[in-house]
């Protein structure tokens, strides 16, 4: 079942080749990474580690991390097959992160914002006291600085090991959003694969704008729970981003390579700042063709002249949506259509 896809370690193997979880295509690892973990064959968006998400989204060198020293405590003395305290310590050691949330200030094509990214590598991106607190602090920082807040979710939901404390993080994050809204602030939620449970049922669903990556699993209950409850097979594409768009639950689906430009544009609409229609990320082809595999991030939009890489788009030079569509066509099959399960 699709649900198990992201929990396997096989999306980070040591070998040269990677098998696409979705279409089964063999992907050359370097190219796969250069494409920021998007399958070249079917467009499937693999879960992106939190730090990589930030690198991919914000202007190079602009990210200043905040509240990174917050850590969770095992207040319940929770023991399943291992005490939660030990599990936390081991995960901190393994991931070199203090918890499942990274927040800070940054600029996106020159537009200042507060960004928060859930890190699925840390206990499935589950929301406990640290995640809830950092999301709330991120929202409050945005309110104080008068800039938009962008929250990327990627989470299995609330962290069971913190019991009802983690449940109340749903209320805490919504409390912060309520204050932001009253103060006239602006928030954007980007739901990525997977976003479920208490995360979907709190801040991620009530930001001003709701975006999703193609093919992302987004829902309240996990598909397994639903299938068990109703004792029926779930319809094709159920709970995928495309399904949510069709049901009117989200504003837009944005592909990973277009997220940065799209966010810059949306922030500009929210803040009234000017933006340039030709400022979007270069195409993946341009990146792969580039000498180093890893491209340099485009400079701040406020600077003179066009973004560094925008010329690399070649004949995709048409501005705005037109060029976006032109780039999407033919290269990327809609993820849902290509999905088997």
């Amino acid at each position: 079942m699709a649900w198990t896809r992201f929990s396997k370690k096989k999306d980070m193997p040591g070998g040269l080749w990677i098998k696409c979880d979705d279409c089964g295509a063999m992907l050359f690892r370097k190219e796969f990474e250069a494409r920021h973990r998007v399958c070249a064959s079917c467009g499937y968006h693999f879960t992106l580690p939190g730090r990589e998400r930030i690198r991919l989204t914000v202007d190079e060198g602009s990210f200043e991390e905040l509240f990174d020293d917050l850590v969770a405590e095992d207040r319940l003395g929770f023991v399943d097959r291992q005490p939660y305290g030990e599990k936390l310590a081991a995960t901190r050691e393994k991931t070199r992160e203090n918890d499942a949330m990274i927040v800070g200030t940054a600029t996106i094509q020159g537009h200042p914002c507060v960004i928060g990214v859930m890190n699925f590598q840390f206990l499935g991106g589950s929301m406990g006291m640290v995640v809830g607190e950092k999301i709330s602090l991120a929202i409050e920082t945005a309110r104080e600085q008068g800039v938009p807040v962008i929250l990327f979710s990627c989470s299995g939901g609330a962290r069971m090991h913190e019991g009802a404390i983690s449940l109340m993080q749903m209320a805490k994050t919504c409390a912060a959003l309520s204050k932001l809204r009253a103060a006239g602030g602006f928030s954007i939620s980007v739901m990525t694969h997977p976003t479920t449970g208490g995360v979907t049922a709190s801040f991620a669903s009530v930001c001003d704008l709701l975006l999703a990556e193609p093919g992302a699993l987004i829902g309240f209950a996990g598909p397994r729970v639903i299938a068990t409850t109703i004792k029926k097979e779930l319809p094709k594409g159920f709970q995928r981003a495309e399904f949510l768009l069709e049901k009117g639950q989200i504003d837009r689906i944005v592909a990973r390579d277009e997220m940065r430009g799209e966010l810059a544009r949306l922030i500009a609409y929210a803040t009234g700042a000017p933006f340039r229609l030709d400022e979007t990320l270069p195409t993946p082809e341009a990146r792969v063709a580039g000498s180093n595999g890893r491209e340099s991030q485009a400079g701040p939009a406020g600077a003179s002249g066009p973004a560094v890489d925008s010329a690399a788009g070649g004949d995709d030079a048409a501005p705005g949506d037109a060029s976006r569509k032109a780039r999407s066509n033919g290269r990327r099959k809609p993820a849902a259509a290509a999905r088997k399960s």
Partner: protein
Amino acid sequence: MTEHKQADTQQNGLGFERPLLEMEQKIEELKRLAQSTHLDLSGEILALEERLRTQTAEVYGNLSAWEKVNVARHAERPMTSDYIQTMLDDFVELHGDRLFGDDRAIVTGLATMGRHRFMLIGHRKGKTVKDRLACNFGCAHPEGYRKALQKMRLAERMRLPVVTFINTPGAYPGIGAEERGQAAAIATNILEMFDLSVPIVSIVIGEGGSGGALGIGVGDRVGILEHAYYSVISPEGCAAILWKSGEKAPEAAEALKLTSGHLLQHGLVDEVIPEPLGGAHRDPQGTIQNVRSRLETWLDELTALPSEELKEQRFRKFRGMGLPVHAAELAGS
């Protein structure tokens, strides 16, 4: 008590009730015998009743988390409909979310209780099999949460406080629920409740099942009945995920610290409302009376507050739940 009921208790995790039920049955028999034979058995009956009291106190004073979950789920535990019938002087049910339908898993309406008037919003589980099916066993769909919000906004316009009764295993996980935005409906309620300018009092009267409970649970005062529970996930669900076996639900219930005492200790509820000896199902009237008296106090306190202060206190309470520590503090401990 019937044998049928005793068989039930074994299946639904209420095995600890068995000796109590047997003793209750014996007392009933003695009373009947006394009546039919005109023998004076009052001494024996009194002694048995005393023993029953002691044993009930002992059993209920030492319930495990899992046993409490099963008390919270007890079929004879007073439900929202019982509170409506017994506690209120008047109730005008109001239907519908104005968008899709009328979810019977959540009942809403205008209520009068003595000198207090309020908007009552409560999960409804149903008493009979037919009722239970109609109410979907207390598992609301998005339209239930949207109905609740629509009535909360109405209460605000009418300057009436909101009282919510929480008693749900959880919001319903189904295809239609997902299609219509279950997560968004709950999230919207939580967000909007912070913005509501009238007092909100929430009481967990049975099961506080995760987001489905919190979706009507952002209260200025949150009370929980002594043997009710409030949890991030059902013990069965937690056991299935972390223990890879639904049969480990008792262990999961223990680990989740979902009982009223623990919730109070962690500052997640404001007060535990005591239940009569032997649980709410033994004395629904007594239970409802306890709830009523807390409600009256809270409504008196809250209606005296200006709405801005009310909202600010509500914000501060939930904003302060589960504060993490700094890494340096952890290393030092």
